[in-house]
């Protein structure tokens, strides 16, 4: 069977969902459930809360398939953005409620925790979405403890290229810290572009 290009798959999926095809919803879940659940879990650190976000995100997509605009980017990043917004919103709610209840801590602490959880989730997304050669280089250097010369050998590239990949990979990852507080970009950074 011929593989579809991601864009084509996204558009077809949107059409099928809009058409009310239950089988398409199942396929959507199979493709994105671990992404959605993983991001929500990274933000909220709670299994039940992540289950609920997963449920809400898929319900939203099923009820509003037309809200996705393929011109704005892949379906994957749209769904990641939806998840991120909901999970962060939820975290802020529960943390605020805890703050009011206990009277301990400050709103600054709260915001710091929210920022931290938010960046961690974006970082996860960036790592899973970055070009495979960059991910492979980071994997070797960080998790396998290879230095860049060994990394170059393992990947069959020049040392110069290995250094380039490590640096570029970390540069991509560092954008997870951009919280977008200025409010200009619509949605959290890190999810918006075709990766």
């Amino acid at each position, binding site marked *: 069977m011929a593989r579809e290009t991601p864009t084509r798959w996204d558009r077809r999926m949107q059409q099928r969902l809009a058409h009310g095809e239950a089988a398409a919803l199942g396929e959507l879940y199979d493709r994105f459930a671990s992404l959605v659940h993983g991001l929500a879990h990274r933000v909220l650190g709670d299994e039940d809360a992540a289950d609920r976000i997963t449920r809400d995100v898929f319900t939203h997509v099923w009820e509003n398939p037309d809200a996705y605009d393929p011109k704005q980017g892949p379906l994957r990043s749209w769904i990641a953005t939806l998840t991120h917004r909901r999970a962060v919103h939820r975290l802020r709610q529960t943390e605020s409620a805890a703050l009011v209840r206990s009277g301990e801590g400050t709103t600054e602490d709260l915001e710091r925790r929210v920022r931290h959880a938010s960046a961690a989730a974006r970082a996860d997304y960036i790592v899973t979405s970055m070009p495979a050669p960059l991910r492979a280089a980071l994997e070797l250097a960080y998790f396998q403890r290879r230095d*860049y010369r060994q990394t170059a050998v393992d990947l069959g590239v020049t040392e110069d290229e290995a250094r380039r990949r490590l640096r570029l990979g970390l540069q991509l990852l560092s954008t997870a810290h951009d919280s977008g507080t200025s409010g200009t970009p619509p949605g959290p950074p890190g999810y918006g572009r075709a990766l």
Partner: protein
Amino acid sequence: MSGPNPFGNAEQPENPDNPDNPDNPDNRDGSGEPEGAGRSDAAASARIPTPRSSVEDTGRPLPDHVPQPLVLEHRVLKSLLGAWALAACSAEESVAVEEHLGGCGPCAEEALRLRDAVGLLHAEESLDLDPMLRSRVLERCLNRRPPRIPVPEWATPYDAETARLDALLQDIGDSEWHAPIRLRWYEGDDRVSRKTTVAGVLTHLMSVDGLVAVALGLDDPLFGVTPEERRTPESRTETFWKASHFPPTRAVRGPWREQSHAVIRTVSFAADPSGSAGRTRTSGQLSVPYGDFTLPLRDSMLDRAFECWVHAEDIAEAVDYPYEPPSPRHLNRMIDLAARLLPDSLAGRRRAGLAAPARGLVAAGAPGRTLRLEVEGAGGGEWLIALDSPGAVGSAEHEVAHVALDGVEFCRLAAGHVTPEEAAAGQDGDREAIHDVLYATASLSRM
């Protein structure tokens, strides 16, 4: 993707004073920056980060000599920042980079930023998604917005079981795809087996699912083979295994999943959504030939769901993963299918001389001697099995024997995974009838 940096600041002019704007590494060679030029502001030194402590250093002796400072170009030092932040360059290079950071504001800014980024890396946690979450999420969605094209109720066990197996396969490593598995089933009264691997089992599932695909007008995953080779589940599997020069690998997952999705989609469209209670227009008349027998499409979909679960258990056991039985509702449908197939299986064994002859002729549609099959546990129930002829009707008044066993145990018996002797069954009444029915259940198994 349009370029190597999807976060795209390539168009922006390089601004060394902006810490959030690391220069584009693609331009790094051509910039010809003078080394250290204009970087003498004292503030820069206060921001020098230290690298992540290197784990490989722990427990090792310190180097004998203090590394001699290297003299490196700015271009090279900058290119080392990633490796430095990851503690993935030589000690000499680290020293050179750190010396450089004291005098170069932009590099110091980037170094700090990259080192912080390293803190965001962590081992991927294998978070097992609750397999039952899928049906809960889907159910809620479909209640909120009823589908125009539903998945027929009789196809949902197949949908759920293939999704469950797919989730298991997603979590297993490359080498585990080659873990050995022994397929077991009954031929007559003989227990037979065949050795393969995890990937081989998935190839088997795909080959046999192909019978359903073909009946639905989809492509046969087996092409370029003789009609005889693609006739039965066993010949299809053996042919598929032989056709490849290499042992099957995880590459089989994609095609298997695509085929199962295509089957679910096609039966959804083939079913008549306006009909009530899952009645179908076209697919109701379809049947799936298995070579030596045929099944109506909906029974065939149940059969494939059952096989998917049984082999998922084989796989889970081989790679040491926990695996739960299907949901009670789906398990109940699978048991029901097996119970409905039992009178035919009994008749087949009788013809082969493996079961006691019928005790009398029963007219088609008339009640005859009956065994009451009581299946306990989630998904259980009671089934009346006609003993003397597939055409006879089971009847409580004609009950001659009673067998009680657990639902999952019954399914394992029907899959050939436990023997009739091993099956923990409570029994009373006609011993011969009980023996024959338990063996007929085991005879439902096949490769």
